[in-house]
């Protein structure tokens, strides 16, 4: 009997990850991608949310808790995007290194110039984000700032590799500049779109296009028939060139609206890995801007 118990538990103990690495838990795929860029081979990255999962509707899973239990650092989007599962994960993980206030608790949004901060909010407005629009990973300017903050904290937590992280950030910044030329070659200035959800406001702000209407009447509330009729009327006069939508949320509604108005459906990945060929953040941004072309 004792041998059986030992046989069961020994492998568990032996497979604990090597101590040399920084163990990073990232909530979203784009954050995982960024952590790999900055952390290089000095970090092991575990991503909690799968690319095809909508971060708005996720529940805490025990596998998330065990990942956080072993983490040296947890990196998250913030602005309440992870409110449905992150608090319970942090609370249940029993890991003093990653509780709020510690450097191992890294809220990316602290480095972001947040837009759409509502001045007054209550839940009659739908599932609105009271701290502002959280979908800033479409904004190279903001992601660059997050990357810099991340490099600083990594250097602070892992002092033996300070130069390594700084160097990786410089490399990342140079790569962003190189890609930016290609991204900005897509002329979107002044163009008008309709979107299903408020996912793309940072993208619009940074690349100069406008989102004139939303299929969702309020965030998280599916459209009623009358809302769709009004929207079709508006679209007849505004003539937006496309409907922006992610593959997993509102595609059906967008397609039927497209059939009735002639505006083309533009499917954009919601996050890194959500569509083929978006394996890291650069490929993700390349795909987004190519789709808008």
């Amino acid at each position, binding site marked *: 009997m004792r041998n059986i118990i030992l046989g069961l538990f020994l492998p568990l103990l032996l497979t604990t990850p090597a101590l040399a690495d920084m163990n990073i838990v990232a909530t979203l795929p784009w954050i995982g991608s960024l952590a790999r860029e900055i952390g290089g081979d000095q970090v092991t990255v575990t991503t909690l949310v*799968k690319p095809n999962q909508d971060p708005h509707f996720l529940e805490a899973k025990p596998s998330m808790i065990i990942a956080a239990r072993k983490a040296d650092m947890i990196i998250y989007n913030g602005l309440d995007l992870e409110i449905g599962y992150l608090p319970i994960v942090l609370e249940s993980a029993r890991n003093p290194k990653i509780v709020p*206030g510690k450097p191992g608790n890294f809220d990316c949004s602290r480095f972001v110039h947040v837009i759409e901060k509502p001045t007054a909010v209550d839940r009659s407005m739908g599932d609105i984000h009271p701290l502002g629009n959280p979908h800033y990973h479409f904004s190279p300017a903001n992601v660059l700032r997050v990357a810099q903050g991340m490099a600083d904290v990594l250097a602070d937590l892992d002092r033996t590799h300070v130069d390594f992280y700084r160097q990786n950030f410089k490399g990342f910044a140079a790569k962003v500049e190189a890609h930016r030329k290609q991204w900005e070659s897509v002329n979107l200035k002044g163009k008008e779109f309709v979107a299903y959800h408020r996912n793309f406001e940072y993208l619009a702000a940074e690349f100069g296009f406008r989102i004139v209407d939303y299929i969702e009447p309020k965030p998280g509330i599916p459209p009623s028939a009358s809302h769709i009729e009004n929207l079709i009327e508006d679209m007849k006069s505004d003539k937006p060139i496309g409907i922006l939508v992610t593959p997993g949320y509102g595609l059906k509604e967008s397609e039927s609206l497209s059939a009735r108005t002639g505006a083309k459906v533009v499917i954009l990945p919601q996050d890194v890995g959500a569509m083929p060929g978006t394996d890291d953040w650069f490929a993700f941004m390349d795909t987004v801007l190519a789709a808008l072309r």
Partner: protein
Amino acid sequence: MRTRIIAAAVFMAAFMPFSVCRAAEELESRLNQLDAELGSQGEIIREQQKTIEGLRAELTKQKEQETPAQEAATPVTKAGGVSGFFGGSALTNPNISLVLDTFAHTSDLKDDELESRGIPGFTTSGLEQQNGFNLRAAELFIFAPVDPYFNLYVNLPVTEDGIELEEAYAVTTALPEGLQAKGGKFKSNFSRLNAQHPHTWDFYDIALPYRAFLGDEGLGGEKGVQLTWLPAWPVYTQFGAEALQGENDLLFGADAANGPHAFSLFVKASVDTTDNSTLYFGPSVLFGKTKTENIVDGAELDGESALYGLEAVWKWKPQPRQGLTLQGEYLYLDQDGDLTDAETGDVESLCRRQDGFYVQGIYQLNRWRFGARYDALELLADSFKRAGEKENLGETPWRATGSVEFNPSEFTRIRLQYNHDESGRDDRSNDEAILQFLFGIGAHAAHTF
């Protein structure tokens, strides 16, 4: 010596104007460069400012169009000025939420029949619901960190009878090695439904084995301490132990012994079966001294009990708003003691080996949820021995349930539930329908798995 210094000074003085001149030139060109850069950056900032202002204007316009009524009723706080009730910061206020749990009920049994409907051989307590309108509770939750070492949680269900202190406990946040301690009054983590608050149940009522062994709300809040350990293993495995006062009036009883006389041990493990599905399972046991009048009419049991539990949940969520949850639990009771007749004072032995289980499935599609549940007692063990004689208690108690829910948002739940209940063992079934409304406001605590 002196001449050398003078020579050096003269030399320096001669070159000074030249070097200063060069430095000034360099400075000027750099300043010009910076000026140009600043100008172009200013341009960018102005452009961004314009976009932001445009967006802001659009947002306010939209809000005015969307919710004029609420807008007028909501005080506008200055941006960035988070202020509490007494003008303090958010730090001075804990998180507060309130859940209203109310329902309409109809049954083919009359109110007095419901009230006296126990489960022979398990419990003499009847059902609390009445035909017509019912208010279960307005549950108030208050929680916040105390300091860097403790979090505090309080749950106060407000019913028509008054305020109860269902839970009030502190949890450690800074113990090493995956240890966590809890102390105060809390819902035990023995088995699954126990730790859940009624408003998070998948059905209006608790599963039959819980009602039979623990009562309408399970074990309920118990005073005591809990220690759990989550080792840093690849697979989620949590070990826990509790020492409780033992005041549940069906399984234990406040007077059963001096001091804490109920204890529990449990293990919870979980693996992700695929990216979109998770299995969660574990055994647990709850044991202690028993002194209660609620098992047999007109008699008090004084003895010892052990309740063994096995829980398993499988959740599958292929789409953001589509999913299936399958859940089942098995409970087995081992109870021995002396039964004293309240009138005659006669004492005889009571020996129980009884069990119960439930299985349920919930399917979610967008804002709709469909549920089915089957629960029954005496699946494998049905021994109820008085004075060594096994009693025939009648038909096996069972119940079947179906439900449809519409959840307009995360914060409202409208549930229609139908029960066919054969747990009374008296050839009278309880066919009941419940239309339940749940509303939640305030700070929204994340749900556990």
